[in-house]
């Protein structure tokens, strides 16, 4: 199957820094794909290159098997930018008609779809038809809905959402999530960039983590976790870590990292360590084991590890909380 988006060794250099360096990605059709990275990782630049707003210095990008610079190819893509805005003085219907026509939808067909969407997102109710109101008369939340419609109205094969959940109220975040799932069910490809690992973990089939313009890891969620290579143990002990077990947890041949969260202790096993040996050692040391569970690393964990390995000063770590 042709990839929805195929990125082949692209680089983009701006005057004083390299935004994207030799990035290659295959984004399969019909997937929800997360483009993850700290702020300034090059996500927006990559998206702009996919949309042919920027031209890569090197490399090529194909959308549904066609070069993205070819006429009409980016019309197959819908885009919800991180920085959102609409023509404030235009009426909602006219803005949407304009956006739809720019993507090549004939006016009559566009009007039909716009009406359907306005109704679905409750911008047309029995009380009021907001479609004829000027954008500036709408509340912030309503404007966000109009923006979704603008990105969707031409029924794109590929939907790109840049930080879609930032600045969304919970109701609209829910509505957008529903739309993403619906698009996926309809066989569309959804690409979204985010630095919020929770939403990525819940929604994505596959992800790519980029930092400083380069790819760190990509693949399905399971692959990415597996590739992380670290086995984790969630441990709960009666009486805490004091009863002579601390020397076991400090044994670097067994455990490389301890994250004590009071109720649960998360341990990273050493690469060749056998979890059975750890359990045995704990019991022999007299610990009362309440929970001993092998777990896969969370996406958050993978992200923090990968990104902070690049920049040890913790810059990236901070970004994940933004």
């Amino acid at each position, binding site marked *: 199957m042709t990839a929805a988006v195929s990125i082949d060794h692209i680089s983009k250099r*701006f*005057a004083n820094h390299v935004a994207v360096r030799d990035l290659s990605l295959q984004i399969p059709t019909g997937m929800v794909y997360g483009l993850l990275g700290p702020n300034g990782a090059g996500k927006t630049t990559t998206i*702009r290159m996919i*949309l*042919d*707003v*920027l*031209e890569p*210095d090197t490399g090529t990008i194909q959308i549904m098997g066609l070069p993205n610079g070819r006429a009409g190819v*980016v*019309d197959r*893509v819908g*885009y*919800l*930018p*991180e*920085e*959102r*805005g*609409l*023509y*404030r*003085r*235009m009426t909602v219907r*006219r803005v949407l008609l*304009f*956006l739809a*026509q*720019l*993507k*090549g939808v004939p006016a009559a067909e566009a009007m039909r779809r716009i009406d359907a969407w306005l109704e679905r997102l409750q911008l047309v109710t029995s009380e009021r038809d907001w479609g004829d109101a000027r954008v500036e008369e709408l509340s912030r939340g309503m404007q966000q809905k109009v*923006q979704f419609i*603008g*990105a969707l109205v031409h029924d794109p094969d590929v939907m790109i959402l840049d930080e879609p959940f930032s600045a969304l109220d919970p109701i609209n975040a829910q509505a957008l999530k529903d739309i993403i799932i619906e698009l996926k069910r309809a066989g569309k490809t959804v690409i979204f960039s985010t630095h919020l690992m929770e939403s990525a973990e819940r929604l994505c089939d596959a992800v790519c983590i980029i930092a400083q313009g380069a790819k760190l890891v990509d693949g399905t969620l399971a692959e990415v976790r597996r590739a992380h290579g670290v086995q984790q143990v969630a441990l709960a002990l009666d009486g805490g870590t004091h009863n002579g077990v601390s020397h076991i947890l400090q044994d670097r041949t067994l455990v490389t990292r301890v994250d004590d969260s009071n109720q649960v202790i998360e341990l990273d096993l050493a690469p060749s360590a056998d979890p059975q040996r750890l359990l045995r050692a704990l019991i022999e040391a007299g610990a009362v084991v309440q929970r001993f569970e092998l777990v896969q690393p969370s996406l958050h964990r993978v992200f923090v590890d990968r990104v902070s390995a690049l920049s040890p000063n913790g810059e990236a770590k901070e970004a994940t909380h933004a």
Partner: protein
Amino acid sequence: MRKLWIVAQREFQERVRSRWFVVSTVLVPAFLGLVIFIPVYFTSTTAASPEMARITIIDVSGSGIGERVAARLDSGVTGTMAPRYEDVAPAALAAAESTATREVIAGTRKGYLVLGPLLWPKPDVRYSGSNATSSIEMSKLQRIVHDELIATRLRSAGMDPDQVQSLTALDLQMSTERLTARGRGGSGEIGSIVAFIVAFVLYLTIFIYGQIVMRGVMEEKQTRVAETVVSSVRPDTLLFGKILGVGGVAAAQLGISALATLLLIQNRAAVMTRLHVQASNYALPHVAPGMGALLIVYFILGYIIYSSLFAAIGSMVSSEQDAQQVQMPVMLLLVITALFIQPVSFAPESRLAEVLSYIPFSSPIIMPLRLSLIPIPLWKLAASLGALVAGCWMAVWIAARIYRTGLLMYGKRPSPRELVRWVRASR
């Protein structure tokens, strides 16, 4: 191409639908109309008043001329306000005059005309009234009396009254034409006024619509709608579409204004008669089709060169204050050109005027001004146009490169060095 059209169409439709467009399109011709008619109206308004017939005619000549003057006043412009005719014996003149004076002071009559003995060659005729300072009313009255005196003399010389009437019926409207070393055509004075107005309208239009393009770009950038739109159209297309659409609005507005003004001027006689003003008799300068086309070409090119620069400025700033500062250089180019309109209109053949005709930033305003004043050799015209087209091409090229980078760049405005980098960078 299709997208360019959609962008241009949006610009055009949204602006034409705005209240601003309707108001300004109506206001401009209305303003021009006022400028043309108000002075004429005020200098002559009392003359046109039917009131001027509401006078007493005291005829002591015994010739009956007073009755004929009254008849003339009663018809013509005067309408229903009939004059009162009194045939008075010379002895009773003083009494009749004092009665008439009282009536004028009381305001029931406008004035009184005394037709004294018809002495040869200088008859004794005088007028007293509240409107004696209105030169147009007085000259009208004097002409009527003058005509009737001649008719009276002809009649007393034995001519048939009917023949007298037909021979003295004369409606003279002398047309005037200025003839100078530059040749003949239209009225020279009007010609230079029209040239001046054309240059000034060009300046204003380029100024106003350049600003509109800049505000439009700033709006798209500041509301972030540009982020969405450039995912569907290239920044170049967006820029050209905007310039095209706003240019369309400018053309529509200018067209409507020009047409309305032209209609007003052509039908000024009817309008002025309505206002009871005598129509002035100037001829509109004849604008040859070739000349008209040249005006339009200069306007289009001038609009393109300035609006693309203003668009680039709009794309590189993120705040109103920045915009004010950054647009200064472009603004100065335009304003300085406007300052030259007057000197050039006085000396269209000067070296200064010639030089300004080759600079792309001044030629769109200066050249049409000169063209409507003096004949310009074809090669000079071609050189001016060539320089302007090259200037346009450069301005658009630079503007497009600044625009595509600036549009999605927020925060601090670029330094001149950064700007140069933007221009040189690839997309």
